[in-house]
């Protein structure tokens, strides 16, 4: 059974070093523009930082992935192809892409460049994943956070494409690449602008009724004193249906699948991804270290998550809650 690979996020050079130093097999990152789905001010890599990061990772025999995973349009297509050309020339180990047209461009212009299908590509079945393999030679696919363990196993059985799943971090309750809620509220969505609830559209305000979070003026939630507030994405809000106020989609919670590691290995998952390119180098260091230890401990025989690992991970949970998400489907 091949070892499960650990794929960690980096929003900056210090985060990349933290990931490498703490045992990431791959570090994924984005360029400093809307070609990636974490297009946040002050985040991501310019050419110099990327070159330094690549040198740092390669000197330690780790791999670097660049996410170019938003959807270009006619008016800005050249920026996406230029991004592909630039990172290919720098010698990155693979790129993560969602747009089929851009995948075709990359496979033709850089036939030796390894291609991974982004979670934003919304491929949830082996038929969809095999489409990307057949057309563009995609080597690995990141699954949207909607499938149960049995369904992930089913997908893995029917494709030669390596399967990567999200293992830890912020949780999209909607299918990635199929959600325009942010664009609906504020005009920018992950697919087109690389951002969900961009910071410039978010406002926090103390009011007599509590702390309010708004997105482009729309009230997403209001918190009583002592309540943990969540970043106002539309899907994390509380709304009213015939008089009842409730979390219409999901309580704020983070994904933590550490206990599923042996299952992942058994069903043929090739890599586990940690979410959080927007998080600090300290987050990356701590989460990477725990997952590295866990994967190494999982190599054979029995596996019980250590209490110290879970305690370390719990400190990073949204709303202090962790969930297995779609893998276990408590809402099924």
């Amino acid at each position: 059974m091949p070892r499960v690979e650990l794929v960690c996020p980096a929003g900056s050079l210090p985060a990349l070093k933290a990931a490498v130093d703490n045992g990431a097999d791959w570090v994924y990152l984005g360029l400093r523009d809307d070609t990636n789905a974490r297009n946040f001010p002050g985040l991501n890599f310019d050419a110099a930082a990327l070159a330094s990061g690549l040198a740092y990772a390669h000197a330690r025999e780790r791999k670097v992935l660049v996410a170019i995973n938003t959807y270009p349009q006619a008016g800005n297509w050249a920026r996406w192809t230029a991004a592909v050309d630039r990172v290919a020339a720098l010698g990155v180990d693979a790129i993560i892409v969602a747009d089929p047209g851009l995948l075709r461009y990359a496979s033709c212009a850089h036939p030796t460049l390894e291609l991974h299908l982004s979670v934003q590509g919304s491929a949830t079945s082996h038929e969809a994943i095999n489409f990307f393999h057949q057309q563009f030679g995609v080597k690995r696919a990141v699954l949207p956070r909607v499938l149960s363990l049995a369904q992930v196993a089913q997908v893995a059985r029917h494709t030669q494409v390596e399967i990567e799943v999200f293992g830890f971090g912020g949780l999209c309750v909607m299918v990635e690449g199929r959600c325009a809620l942010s664009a609906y509220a504020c005009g920018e969505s992950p697919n087109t602008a690389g951002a969900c609830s961009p910071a410039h559209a978010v406002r926090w305000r103390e009011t007599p009724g509590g702390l309010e979070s708004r997105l482009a003026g729309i009230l997403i939630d209001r918190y009583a004193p002592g309540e943990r507030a969540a970043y106002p994405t539309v899907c994390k809000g509380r709304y009213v249906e015939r008089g009842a106020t409730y979390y219409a989609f999901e309580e704020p919670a983070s994904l933590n699948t550490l206990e599923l590691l042996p299952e992942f290995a058994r069903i043929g998952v090739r890599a586990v991804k940690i979410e959080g390119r927007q998080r600090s180098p300290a987050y990356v260091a701590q989460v990477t270290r725990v997952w590295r230890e866990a994967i190494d401990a999982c190599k054979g025989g029995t596996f019980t998550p250590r209490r110290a690992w879970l305690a370390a991970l719990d400190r990073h949970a949204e709303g202090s809650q962790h969930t297995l998400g779609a893998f276990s489907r408590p809402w099924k």
Partner: protein
Amino acid sequence: MKLALGPLLYYWPRAAVLSFYEDMAASPVDAVYLGEVVCSRRHELAFEDWLAIGANLAAAGKEVVLSAQALTESEGDLKLVCRTVANGRFRVEANDWGAARLLCGARGWVAGPHLNVYNPQTLALVAELGATRWVAPVEATREMVAGTLAERPMDLEAEVFGFGRMPLAFSARCFTARRLNRQKEDCGYACLDFPDGMALETREGKPFLAVNGIQTQSSGVYCLVEELNALRDAGTALLRISPQSRGTAQVLRVLRAAIDGDLSAYDARKALAACSPGKLWNGFWHGRAGVEAA
């Protein structure tokens, strides 16, 4: 410009569905998309029932397209997509790349709104694979539609979502069941009680969203009746209308009259507002938030 009736996104009782499509056979719609796109648990109509409705509509002179389910999770979902693709009679709308793979090489399929075709390069790809129609994503702007179509392959038509509650997101979870504290697999088919989706307001009482099982929609109604010339100039051949529980036939009549120049955009908008389950919005087309009216 032709009128296309998108797939029924809600779950209605069987008799209501049959009666709805009888009305549609007599309406001025040109193309009708059929099938269950949202939730595989919905079973008021079997696959064969959809084929029978399609046959009636075809006999009434309508173009019929079978829409494939947007989110496939289980092997059962995939089998249904395979059946849809292999129906042997009607064109098929692919709503994920698995369906597109199964349709590769067949001529005349429709690249649906959930495929995420956002640029001329991806459009050229689907055209090479046999698609002859592209339905733009719901968040498409005028600029995006015009730009994507500027280098359009020959024989490829464009369709734009032009009227109805906007389909904004899919999830593995069922939010209608969640509201009623039910498990997804024991939902009691609660969607039957919400023929236009379950409306959600913000905590200050503003209409915001509509929950439709695993799908989340806008509470307001997307309406491009004032953009007919711009749609035509951008290269749009079909305007998609999304079925609603009341007034769909009237919506089709009003839009037909507006397209033909028999009704002013102002009067058409007024008439459409009178038979809509929410406010009329058009922000996406203008590159703004979907909740806005430009």
